């Protein structure tokens, strides 16, 4: 391990998550590598079922009971998470790594006041008094843009709208000043107008508090642009990762290119034209997957793609898992026109 890697807040090498299902074993996460630097925002992009949520739960140590996790390397600030006892793990959760979930409507306990739920983590981890915890909760509620914060502490979740609840969740994640926040599609369940507000808020807070953020989304359009780096997941693998400008300028993997072409661009996409889509469906991850998982949907698939592609390094911290990431695709075999 080089010196540089030690400085990373989160270091993930060959992370695998398997889930037993009726038909066999579902390989939800199939050996992914990525890292998160201190204070940066990494966006994990992929469609439903690509393993992005399982990855986040694996990092938090909140995987479903029957799942199995393995990794060559899973380090958070130099702490090996794979060998940590559940008790030590829970000391980290909420204190140094926090999570914001997709569904603000159900993520808060209906039976307790917001104040109670905001404060309990801080009281548990820092041993502060209830009064101190309430003061911090009021400060953070105001910071995430909730008016009459003091009165809100005595309200129950059902008295708040979805957007407000998600703001509360963000404040809750910030209570202990964590080094890392994992936000799992925090805006997906919200109205579009609220989405933009929440997104902007998260970015602001991330820069203000210097918190590293893993932002999980299926939206390569607007959302991913706020990140410092983007990692694209497909079928349980990271198939491309790059600094955000590089990814948008030079997408190296055909899947990334496909995703980008699906986004209608104002001024570029003619009105009334058909929206792009990637044909086909994600392969089943039950059982062993041979070769490139995307080849059945790939417009440039070659016989070589039957073999599992290596992770190719491109200039500028850009990586892609494609045989042809760094070279042109051979000319497709055209049927002879004249013979």
């Amino acid at each position, binding site marked *: 391990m080089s010196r540089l890697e030690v400085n990373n807040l989160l270091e993930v090498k060959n992370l695998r998550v398997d889930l037993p299902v009726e038909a066999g074993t579902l390989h939800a996460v199939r050996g992914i590598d990525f890292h998160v630097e201190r204070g940066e925002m990494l966006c994990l992009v992929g469609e439903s079922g690509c393993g992005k949520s399982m990855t986040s739960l694996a990092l938090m140590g909140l995987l479903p009971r029957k799942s199995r996790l393995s990794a060559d390397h899973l380090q958070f600030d130099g702490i090996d998470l794979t060998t940590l006892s559940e008790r030590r793990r829970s000391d980290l959760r909420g204190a140094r790594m926090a999570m914001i979930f997709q569904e603000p409507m159900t993520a808060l306990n*209906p039976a307790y006041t917001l104040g109670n739920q905001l404060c309990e983590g801080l009281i548990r981890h820092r041993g502060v008094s209830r009064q101190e915890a309430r003061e911090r909760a009021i400060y953070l509620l105001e910071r995430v843009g909730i008016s009459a914060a003091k009165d809100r502490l005595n309200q129950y979740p059902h008295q708040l709208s979805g957007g407000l609840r998600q703001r509360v969740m963000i404040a809750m994640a910030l209570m202990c000043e964590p080094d890392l926040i994992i936000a799992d599609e925090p805006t997906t369940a919200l109205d579009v107008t609220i989405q933009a507000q929440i997104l902007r808020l998260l970015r602001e807070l991330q820069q203000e508090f210097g918190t590293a953020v893993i932002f999980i989304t299926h939206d390569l359009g607007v959302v991913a642009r706020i990140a410092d780096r983007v990692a694209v997941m497909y079928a349980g693998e990271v198939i491309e990762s790059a600094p955000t400008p590089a990814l948008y300028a030079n997408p190296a993997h055909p899947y990334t290119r496909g995703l980008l072409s699906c986004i209608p661009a104002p001024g570029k996409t003619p009105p009334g034209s058909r929206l792009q889509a990637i044909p086909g469906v994600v392969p089943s991850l039950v059982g062993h997957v041979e070769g490139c998982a995307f080849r059945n949907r790939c417009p440039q698939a070659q016989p070589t793609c039957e073999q599992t592609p290596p992770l190719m390094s491109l200039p500028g911290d850009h990586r892609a898992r494609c045989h042809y990431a760094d070279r042109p695709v051979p000319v497709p075999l055209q049927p002879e026109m004249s013979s």
Partner: protein
Amino acid sequence: MGTFIVRRILVAMSVALTISIVSFMLLHLSGDLATSIAGPEATAEQVEQIRVDYGLDRPIVNQYLDWLSGALTFDFGRSYYYQSTVIDLIVDRMPITLTLGGLALALAVGISIPLGVLAALKRDTWIDRLALLFAVVGQAMPSFWFGLTLIVVFAVTLQWLPAAGSDGWQHFVLPAIALGYYATPAMMRLTRTGMLEVLESDYIRTARAKGLRTGSVIFKHALRNAIIPVVALAAVELGFMLGGSVVIESVFSLNGLGQLAWDAISRNDYPVVQAVVLIIALFYIVLTLLADVANAALDPRIRTR
């Protein structure tokens, strides 16, 4: 919360009034009361005399209003069979029934909730299976048979506890176990199912993501939500134990309300039947009210509805 309780009390009172009307009518529709009081050998004149003496010749609405105005001051008239007022009989029998029902419920709650939580936490292990076996046995076994078994083992063979009577606390141990075990399986299963459901919920994941201790996640966040249906069930179970424990009361020769009602029905002692039906209905109403208030205290969403 205040208006919630007031509203519930008004509803409860109208339910009580309805029950008193329905039970009064049913009793009077079940046949000619004068004939059944007089017995099969009575002459027509004797039956008429009884009808006049007991006021059964007057319009039924007047009879009901008279009875109701008495009932409002706890005057349910005199028993036809015992030489005492109905209210004295009830006051005399009530403590036995309350003691038995209270002990049985305490036992049932004390066993079913911890066992249900444990079974849910240890889902699909031998502990869970054992808890389910305990529940199935409790549901399958008739309570009179279990009561008799307890008597045979603990009263006759081991001679640890008395088999019959109601003089001291020892007399209530076996009947409370028999009655409590009857109420345990449903509550245990409901606790287990509720816990399993709640433990899968998003807010439990949030609580765990906050790094809360396991005890706090289970008892503060999960149990409080899982217990809400159990509270309502416990109220119904206690109502049953207070009103319907006739079988257990007769197996253990406890002279409670159930026994009184049973005797009164077989002796055509209508004022007693009428009063006991109302009292038992009131038990249910009060318990349901208490369960509603308890649930509102547990779940803020109910309060503001």
